[in-house]
């Protein structure tokens, strides 16, 4: 009986969440982004670019021929990597939304238990991410139809996905639930932390524990903790490559000048140990889920306030003798006051608010902004972290009013310009340029092109944040896309993703300009939609 109730409530939540999310413009933008990324991820075999490569037992660089199994593996690795990273930003915030919209209080008055509610959230996250994942799979099929060689077979195309992706999505979903219910992690601080959590716990820890990605894995059992599945994938390659696996697995779109050998890859040879380890690794979902259930306050404000109440009771405020505890001042007429609203003041006020709202991030942001002034490679890492934090701080600027429900208050103010997006963009650019000044000095030392690329990069972050924030009416889509791009730029040490000219040794002005141009196109789309919304 209890389990049927659990499934019924979970099903209801999955339906409600899926319907809400699938109707959101954020899903459309995510699907388009994933579609583009999927096509880029499996480049033409004659282009000189590759996304998955390794060294064979003789130390020679190899990649796979575009058979269904290799294309399927490429699509699966892409989905496993990016949906576990971006997916978090797309699904996190659901409990927070219930809390802020008041739905949580309504649910709290029903017999729904904490575990049933959170299980429903987990399942809804998993289902939504699976919908997105299926796009990567479908794109894999399209890519094979275009570049593929050999006969088509469905199972080799789908098998890598089934082996790697669902486990990763399950871990992402449970982490989103845990972060959502944990005070201090449910806001933007948690969103920053997740990136590092994903890098170290989901990606590097299994890699290090099970032999790493730089060398051939040692013989032994299949990884029992491998959320993203890369350690498992390395072992699969080790067992199946015709010329052996010498390590040095490269993931990410890269272009090489020397010819790369493309070898036939027979695909995954499934075994009981491999499948058992993947299924068994799902047991790791239980501790974070149990922790989430334990931490979750079930929307009871008294639990959240217990600490502050204890603090208050430790320092009682005693009203002076002879005065009432609550002083009611007499109503006083308003004195005349002069006002001079202007768009410039509105932009400045908004820029100040961006700084005020970034309570957790502003000092690390200022610190890395200053450290980005270090010349050459010394300033590269601080500049990269500065750009990441800047993205976090700007992520909700365009959607702040709709997220907090302040639209009628703010949009009726005289200083707010006719174009809200221009206002938000102005404030975001102001914050970006002021904080990016030290980095600009360092970039200029490397040449005018570097200085200009850095400015274009700052403009790109601000424009993309405002455009995607307006399109999705939230900040998570931007954070997901931007963090993935930032990761690609950092991992690629520059190259085609270096939107600011500071990730590599060489500033590519054209790359930075292209990214800014793309963001401006999105901005135009956002402006058109904003105009349509206003007219409705």
């Amino acid at each position, binding site marked *: 009986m209890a389990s049927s109730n659990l499934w019924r409530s979970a099903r209801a939540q999955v339906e409600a969440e899926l319907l809400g999310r699938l109707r959101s413009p954020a899903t459309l933008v995510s699907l388009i982004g994933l579609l583009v990324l999927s096509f880029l991820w499996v480049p033409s075999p004659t282009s000189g670019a590759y996304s998955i490569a390794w060294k064979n037992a003789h130390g020679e660089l190899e990649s796979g021929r575009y058979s269904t199994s290799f294309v399927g593996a490429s699509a699966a690795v892409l989905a496993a990597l990016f949906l576990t990273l971006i997916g978090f930003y797309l699904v996190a915030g659901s409990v927070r939304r219930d809390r802020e919209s008041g739905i949580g209080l309504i649910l709290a008055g029903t017999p729904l238990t904490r575990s049933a509610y959170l299980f429903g959230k987990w399942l809804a996250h998993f289902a939504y991410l699976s919908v997105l994942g299926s796009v990567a799979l479908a794109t894999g099929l399209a890519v094979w139809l275009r570049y593929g060689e050999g006969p088509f077979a469905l199972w080799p195309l789908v098998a890598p996905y089934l082996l790697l992706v669902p486990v990763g999505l399950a871990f992402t979903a449970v982490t989103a639930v845990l972060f959502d219910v944990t005070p201090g992690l449910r806001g933007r601080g948690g969103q920053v932390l997740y990136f590092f959590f994903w890098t170290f716990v989901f990606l590097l820890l299994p890699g290090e524990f099970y032999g790493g990605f730089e060398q051939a894995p040692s013989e032994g059992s299949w990884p029992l903790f491998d959320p993203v599945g890369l350690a498992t994938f390395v072992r699969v390659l080790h067992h199946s490559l015709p010329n052996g696996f010498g390590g040095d697995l490269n993931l990410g779109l890269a272009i090489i000048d020397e010819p790369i050998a493309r070898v036939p890859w027979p695909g995954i040879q499934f075994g009981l140990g491999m499948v058992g380890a993947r299924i068994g690794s799902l047991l790791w979902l239980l501790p974070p889920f149990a922790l989430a259930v334990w931490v979750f306050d079930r929307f009871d404000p008294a639990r959240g306030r217990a600490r502050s109440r204890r603090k208050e009771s430790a320092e009682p405020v005693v009203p002076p003798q002879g005065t009432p505890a609550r002083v*009611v001042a007499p*109503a006083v007429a308003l004195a005349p006051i*002069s*006002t001079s*609203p202007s768009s410039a003041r509105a932009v400045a006020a908004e820029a100040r608010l961006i700084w005020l709202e970034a309570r957790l991030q502003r000092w690390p942001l200022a610190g890395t902004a200053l450290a980005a002034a270090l010349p050459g490679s010394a300033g590269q890492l601080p500049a990269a972290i500065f750009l990441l934090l800047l993205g976090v701080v700007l992520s909700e600027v365009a959607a702040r009013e709709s997220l907090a*429900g302040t639209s*009628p*208050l703010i949009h*009726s103010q005289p200083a707010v310009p006719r174009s809200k997006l221009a206002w938000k963009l102005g404030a975001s650019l102001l914050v970006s340029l002021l904080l990016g000044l030290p980095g600009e000095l360092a970039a200029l030392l490397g040449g005018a092109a570097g200085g200009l690329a850095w400015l274009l990069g700052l403009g790109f972050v601000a424009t993309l944040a405002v455009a995607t924030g307006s399109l999705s009416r939230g900040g998570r889509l931007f954070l997901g896309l931007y963090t993935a791009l930032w990761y690609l730029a950092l991992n690629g040490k520059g190259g085609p993703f270096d939107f600011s000219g500071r990730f590599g040794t060489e500033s590519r002005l054209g790359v930075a300009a292209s990214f800014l141009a793309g963001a401006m196109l999105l901005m135009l789309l956002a402006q058109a939609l904003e105009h349509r919304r206003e*007219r409705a």
Partner: protein
Amino acid sequence: MLEVRSLTKRYAGGVTALADFSLQAPAGVLGLLGPNGAGKTTLMSILATVTRPTGGTVLWQGQDVLADPHGLRRSLGYLPQDFGVYPKLTAREFLRYLGRLKGVAERDLGSRIDHLLELTNLRQMADRPLGSYSGGQKQRVGIAQALLGDPRLVIVDEPTVGLDPEERVRFRNVLAEIAHGRLVILSTHIVSDVEAIASSIAVLRQGRLLAHATPEELLRRAQGRVFEALVPSERLAEVQSRVAVSSLVRKAEGTRLRFVGDPSSLPGATAVEPSLEDAYLWLSRWGS
């Protein structure tokens, strides 16, 4: 001061919230009364320049508001029915931000905020994050921001929701006091809120204006339409389906009803002096 001509608002789903609505309002307190869905919030949202109407004209001191919304916004203090706050900001920070968007000079801003915090009884908690405020305290922040500039037009939608009785009376007095030389538009379901301070009352139903008159005029219109009668308790349900009951008191001999409607349906009913609530009930049910 304010003139509304043939205002119409149709939403994308085909719902008509306002239909050919016209009104003139001089300085003073204009109370808006009407049942849920009457179009009060849509009207206020249009007057506050947040929503664009489908048709019609709004003139503020002779200027077309739809052509130049900024002209009215400079004179506007607006408290919407549902509004959010930024939970991480303190009340003082939030008011400072809004003060800048209203264009209040920096030299005046601090003292103005202090004055309004005092006025709304928020001074002692002004530096706490808004996320820790109760519903009534947030409402008071909303009231403070509406008065932050030097508004000539104050639009307040259900302003007393969540306030305790003491604060309600206090806020009513503030509105009455600032209405000298200004126009205050107050929408509410609580008839006693407008009864106390409104210089005129507009009654809306289904997006149309049923009446716009002084409270005295509305009372006069309800003369001879309000009655009291003693009804056996077992007939109560049947009687309630025929008349609009404004109050009832159970007694040993039956239930004493106060109702608006046709006295012939209850023999023995005696006419009584109408209250504004009775007048509103009569208008919203039978007025046209």
